């Protein structure tokens, strides 16, 4: 109960640092999920609707990549953007850009794989019907996506849940810098290391409330099953 009281006290306090931390989390997650969706949704459709040699293998690889540990993604991007790495001259390590690159890599396989899975389950008559209605080219794909919007939304939300809840990438690539790259999860990690368990749990509750709110709103907007 103490923790719940603490969480609500924190929210009601409107503490500017807490607000900034929540906004940073949302900002990073939103940007990386938008980018991953722009790449992953077309890729998911492509892998279902077009056949090419090695397609099955690509699917197996993408599905396996869903198991990527955040710390491995972090290490991989770290080795790219650290000063000694190939992209070192850009100075991206410990900046929001590095975090977003990491989160994008983390979540792209999830969005792609889930979109592909949902597209595979769609009524096989749907593409046919759309063709019969005279849809072709970009318009055909646009209508297809519109018909599948509920499924796509759930894939995007699953990806969003993964990024907003991850700590490995944000910690390693962002560095948990106050007022800059400190997110809800890196704050929880920091507070836990300081022995401030109640504050950590309170932040966890705030994170879950944000996730719930977003899922709820999307559910209302898209009305997916």
């Amino acid at each position: 109960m103490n923790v719940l009281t603490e969480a609500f006290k924190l929210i009601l306090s409107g503490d500017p640092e807490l607000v900034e931390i929540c906004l940073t989390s949302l900002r990073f997650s939103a940007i990386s999920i938008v980018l991953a969706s722009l790449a992953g949704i077309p890729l998911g459709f492509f892998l279902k609707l077009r056949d090419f040699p090695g397609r099955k293998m690509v699917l197996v690889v993408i599905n396996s990549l869903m198991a990527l540990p955040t710390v491995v993604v972090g290490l991989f991007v770290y080795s790219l953007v650290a000063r000694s790495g190939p992209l070192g001259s850009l100075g991206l390590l410990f900046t929001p850009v590095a975090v977003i690159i990491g989160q994008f890599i983390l979540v792209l396989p999830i969005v792609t794989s889930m979109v592909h899975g949902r597209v595979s389950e769609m009524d096989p008559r749907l593409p046919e019907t759309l063709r019969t209605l005279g849809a072709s080219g970009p318009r055909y794909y646009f209508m297809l996506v519109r018909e599948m919007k509920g499924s796509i939304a759930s894939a995007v939300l699953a990806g969003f849940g993964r990024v907003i809840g991850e700590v490995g990438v944000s910690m390693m690539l962002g560095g948990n810098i106050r007022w800059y790259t400190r997110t809800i999860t890196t704050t929880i990690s920091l507070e836990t290391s300081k022995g401030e368990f109640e504050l950590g749990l309170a932040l966890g509750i705030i994170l879950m409330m944000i996730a719930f709110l977003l899922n709820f709103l999307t559910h209302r907007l898209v009305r997916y099953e």
Partner: protein
Amino acid sequence: MMKKRNFLLLTAALIFLSAGLYGGGQKESEPVHIKMATTTSTENSGLLAELLPAFLEEKNIQIDVIAVGTGKAITHGENGDVDLILVHAPAKEDAFVADGFGVNRRDVMHNDFVIIGPADDPAGIAGMTDAAAALSKISAASAPFLSRGDESGTHVKEKDLWKDAGISPAGIWYKETGQGMGTVLTMVGEIQGYTLTDRGTWLAMKDNLDLKILVEGDGRLFNPYGIIAVNPELHSHVNYDGAMAFIDYITSVEGQDIIRNFKKGGEQLFFPDAVQ
């Protein structure tokens, strides 16, 4: 209906994106950002939260702090991923400068290490003033001892003390955690074991711990902090002027006064060394 929904979704997306483009809480003239890798003790104790805003106010330079163990902080410095480091492992600091990775090392402040443990003290070390002898007794009693095990300044000091005691610690009683100081203190409290900690982190956390200081005052437990700029000859991209501005500030009368006046529960955590 469809249009309205799309509009709402689009609005939500735009709000997120614009929040991303314009970070919250920005000032009118955007401060220069420089990066400093430091130990968890300076950040977790809250000292930097006192020093950095004052420095920002004066020079319009925002120090982005990456709080890690001393070992990792030095690695970040060697790789040029930060502009300066504030650490506590004198031998490693000297090597960092001697190998050309850093320049202009300055003494900043000190506190000391202490050995803490449970009040019932099964190894019987309470009141000893020879830290190495105390570790020998812990080892002889096979009482649980938690090591940072992360090449931090505290871990380096602990290994030196074991060496002085002529023991290479091993066995189920010796637990290498690989965690930061705060986490280790929490674990020690749960296990009711022993550990070596800097006094600053201890003072910041002791109210939540059922532990007490058992050994202190050994000259070997001196814990000096040094600040070093990353060598701009080696890494031309570092903000050397920014780093030197902060080194000047932290060793100035003003900076040293902030360190002197920084207290937790009435106790001073760090003792300034640049200006006595």
